[in-house]
C-alpha cells in the first residue's frame, strides 16, 4: 500500500520541479500545471511533506521517491515469492497428511465397511478431495487480508479524491 503513495509523492515533486520551465515557456500563470493547482491538491497531505529529505530541492526529492519506489517494488518481489512458496508447501504437507490418513484408515476398515466403500471411492477421495488443499493455502490469507487492504486503500483514496468544496454544493442547490 506504500507504493501508490510513493508514486504520488514522486509525481508531486516532479511537477514542482518542472513548474518553472512551463511558466517561463508559456509566459502566463493560467497553465494547467501552475504551482497553485499542484499545491491545492495537497490539502490533508501536508504530513507527507515532512518525510521528504529536502525542503527546497524538489529535484532531489523526486529522485529520492523514485529510488524508494524501485526499492520497495524489489522488496515486494523478494518477500512475496517465498511467501507463496511457503504457502504451497504448507498446503502440500496437509495434502500428504490427509492422503496418509486415508491410507491408514483404508487398511483398518472392518468387513461391513469394506462392503460399503469401494476402491473407486477411496481413489476419488485421494485424487479430488485431498488435492483441494495444495492450492487453497495461497488465497486463504486474503479472506482476512482483503478487507484490511480495502480499509488502508480507501483511507488513502479519501485523502486524495475525498475532497469537495462548498460552493459547488450551493451552485447545484439553486
Amino acid at each position, binding site marked *: 500500500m506504500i507504493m*501508490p503513495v510513493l508514486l504520488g509523492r514522486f509525481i508531486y515533486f516532479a511537477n514542482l520541479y518542472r513548474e518553472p520551465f512551463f511558466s517561463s515557456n508559456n509566459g502566463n500563470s493560467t497553465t494547467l500545471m501552475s504551482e497553485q493547482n499542484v499545491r491545492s491538491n495537497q490539502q490533508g497531505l501536508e504530513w507527507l511533506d515532512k518525510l521528504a529529505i529536502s525542503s527546497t530541492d524538489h529535484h532531489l526529492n523526486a529522485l529520492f521517491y523514485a529510488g524508494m519506489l524501485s526499492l520497495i517494488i524489489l522488496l515486494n518481489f523478494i518477500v512475496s515469492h517465498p511467501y507463496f512458496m511457503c504457502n504451497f508447501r504448507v498446503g502440500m504437507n496437509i495434502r500428504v497428511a*490427509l492422503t496418509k490418513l486415508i491410507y491408514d484408515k483404508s487398511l483398518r476398515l472392518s468387513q461391513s465397511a469394506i462392503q460399503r466403500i469401494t476402491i*473407486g*471411492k477411496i481413489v476419488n477421495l485421494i485424487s479430488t478431495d*485431498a488435492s*483441494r*488443499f495444495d492450492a487453497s493455502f495461497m488465497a486463504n490469507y486474503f479472506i482476512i487480508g482483503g478487507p484490511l487492504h480495502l480499509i488502508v486503500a480507501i483511507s488513502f483514496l479519501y485523502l486524495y*479524491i475525498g*475532497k469537495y468544496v462548498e460552493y459547488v454544493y450551493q451552485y447545484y442547490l439553486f
Partner: protein
Amino acid sequence: MIFHHIRACFGAIIIIFLYIPFQGFMANILSRFRSKSIILTDDRLRLMAEILPAMRVIKMYCWEKPFALLVNLARRLEIVKIRHSMIVRSINLAIFFVSNKVIAFVCFVWFLETSDQQLTAEIVFVSLSLIFQIRESMTFFFPIGVSYVVESYISLCRIQVKLFIKIPSNNFFILIRNFFSKKRNQSPRN
C-alpha cells in the same frame, strides 16, 4: 444532490460492498454445484470400477455398446454440472477484469462532479494504483479464497462421512457399551 454530501472515494466502497454479498451468493451456488458434481463423479467411478473387472463377460456377450452408452451418459451428466460451475467461475473472472475500470470511472466522475479541484496526474496515478491493489486483493484473491475454503470444507466433510463415522450397530449390547465407554469422543476404531 445527496451525492454532493458524500466524498468521491465512497464510490469505490459502494461498489466493493455491493460485491461482497454477491461473492457469498456465488460461493453458495458454487458449493451446491460442486456437491452435486461430486456425487456424479462417485457414480461414474463406481461404474468404471464395476465394468473394468467384468470386461471379459462384456466381451463374451458383446455388451460393449450398451455399456459404452452407460459410461457416456455418466460422463455427460457429470460434465453438465462441471460446466455450470465453470460458468459461475467465468462470471467471477469477468467481473474481476471489468471491476478496475468500473471503480476508476465511478470515482473520477464523482470527483469531477463534487470537487472544484483539477484532476492532476498525481491524483489519477495514485487513485488508479490504489484501485488496482483493491481489485487484486478484493475481487481476485478474496473470491478464490472463499471458494477454496468452501470446497475444502466439503471435501473434509466427505472424507469424514465416508471413512471416519461409525455406522451404529444393530447389536444392543454394543450400543450400550459405546454409550457408556469413556472413549466415545475419540475417533472410532473399526
